[in-house]
């Protein structure tokens, strides 16, 4: 009903219809669409700076051929997928449990919500700095705690086998609160009478969770999961500060590969080619995710 009403409540607006949308449209076109198009063009060129002027020379598909054999890119892609699946999976489970608890916490809800909001608002670089100190093998608090329990400390970021897991743990610390917040809002918008009906029918906590809460929460869970999964391709700040992609290629992620090729090695054409491929893969993921969330919504509605 609301959409029908607001659909009717519209005006022609005349010139102002255009003038109000123009600034946003201009910015999107000049600073988002054109740069993405430029990225594609750049990916077919080698670009060198001489006296502040860019000199372009065409190289055809050479960068794309090179990319398919680039071990760093392969490692980055593999690590990004592992990172996204494990980190977001953990964030969803922990976030859901916390949201369930906090939704029943009564007056303490506001306290927990304030505390859990904190990591979302901290700069990624500061979170990197915090955990670099905590993971320090010599004086970090993580090893100190383990020592109290009589467990030998480890080099969390310097050990090939542990580094990716350590970075994932930081991401879980950073982003679980975000998942928690969205799921809590979803839980609190569920109709209350359903819970009461379940109680009256004598459903236990687990039965209610399995047959009432989870099915009704499915759309929110699907949207949150898809969103976090896609956005986790952005991860950069923490990796930059914690490991720089190392040791070796243990924590190399695609964002970092792009940065390294483009800026550290000053290979703008090749860096652009990697960006184009990453954007293409992301577009594919977004299409799949949209289809999946639509199905979840239809399922919940039926």
């Amino acid at each position, binding site marked *: 009903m609301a959409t029908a009403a607001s659909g009717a409540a*519209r*005006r022609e607006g005349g010139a*102002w*219809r255009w003038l*109000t*949308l123009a*600034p*946003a*449209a201009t*910015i*999107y076109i000049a*600073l*988002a669409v*054109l740069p*993405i198009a430029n*990225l594609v063009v*750049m990916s077919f060129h080698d670009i060198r700076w001489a006296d502040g*002027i860019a000199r372009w020379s065409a190289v055809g598909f050479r960068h794309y051929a090179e990319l398919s054999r680039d071990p760093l890119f392969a490692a980055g892609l593999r690590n990004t997928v592992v990172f996204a699946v494990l980190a977001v999976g953990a964030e969803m489970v922990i976030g859901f449990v*916390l949201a369930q608890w906090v939704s029943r*916490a009564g007056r303490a809800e*506001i*306290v*927990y*919500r*304030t*505390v*859990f909001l*904190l990591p*979302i*608002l*901290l*700069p*990624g*670089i*500061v979170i990197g*700095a*915090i*955990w670099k*100190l905590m993971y320090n093998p010599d*004086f970090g608090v993580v090893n100190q705690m383990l020592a109290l329990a009589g467990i030998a400390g480890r080099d969390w970021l310097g050990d090939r086998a542990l580094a990716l897991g350590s970075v994932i743990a930081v991401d879980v*610390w950073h982003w679980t*609160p*975000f998942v928690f*917040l*969205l799921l809590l*809002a979803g839980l609190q918008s569920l109709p209350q009478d359903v819970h009461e009906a379940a109680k009256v029918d004598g459903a236990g906590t687990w039965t209610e969770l399995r047959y009432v809460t989870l099915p009704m929460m499915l759309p929110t869970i699907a*949207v949150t999961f898809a*969103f976090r999964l896609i956005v986790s*391709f*952005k991860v*950069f700040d923490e990796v930059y500060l914690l490991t720089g992609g190392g040791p070796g290629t243990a924590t190399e992620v*695609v964002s970092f590969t*792009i*940065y390294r090729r*483009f800026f550290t090695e000053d290979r703008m054409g090749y860096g*652009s080619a990697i*960006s184009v491929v*990453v*954007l293409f893969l*992301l577009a594919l993921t977004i299409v799949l995710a949209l289809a999946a969330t639509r199905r979840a919504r239809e399922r919940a509605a039926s």
Partner: protein
Amino acid sequence: MIAPRVKSVAMHAALAAAAMVVLLPVLWTALAAFKTQIALLRGDALFAPTLANFHELLFSRSSDYFAHFANSLVVATLSTALVLLVATLAAYSMVRMRWPPAVPALVLGFSLVFHMIPPITLVGPWYVMARALGVDDTYAALVLAHLTLHLPIGIAVMSVFVRDVPFELEEAARLDGCTTPQLLRRIVFPLVRPGLAATGILVFVFSWNEFAVALTLTGRHTATIPVAIARFAQEYEIKHGVMAAGAVLSVIPAILLLLFAQRSIVKGIIAGVGK
């Protein structure tokens, strides 16, 4: 009646433990900022607090922390103001003007997709553009980049709030002879103030925190705080205490906003994603 109470106590204990997991790393870092390098390296739990790290951070000859702080403040303030203005106008146009349905669908769809793209993929072309125009290492380049990055969330959130402005009020104002700019200034902007607060706080914090773009588009003159902190972690024979002090000072705005504007932040985050 004992079982539910036991369960409730267990739940609160678990929640308190989770809250500790969130808070302890931040507190530990805050403490580290007041430790001498020796106390830090020994891992002393009890120590004599010192302001030496802050002193070195702020007043040593090589320090530019105040300049970085000012840079962050300028960039975050300007880009936030621009996002609020541009996003509200666009939201108003899409919600209240008679566009073919494809236009708002395209703008909102592009906003959603663009919001999910890693900024690092765009930094390359931005850098080439800025350098070709000779505006790299200027405020303008970073402000425009942050405006572009955060416009999607601005448009998404402001659309939700503009939709709630009563249309009858607009009609009445129009009958009284209000022009569109007057309508925007006297009715729309005042009525969406909660939305402006929610969007403004989020965008300010995001801009303040943003690293990947700032790292590549800024130079000596315009480096923001995250860029400065990253440099602490790399350039020096790592001064852990000074890095901790820099981190502590940099999160003060976020913590103040968290304490005084929590409701707005939650509203903004949920309106931005949970549509």
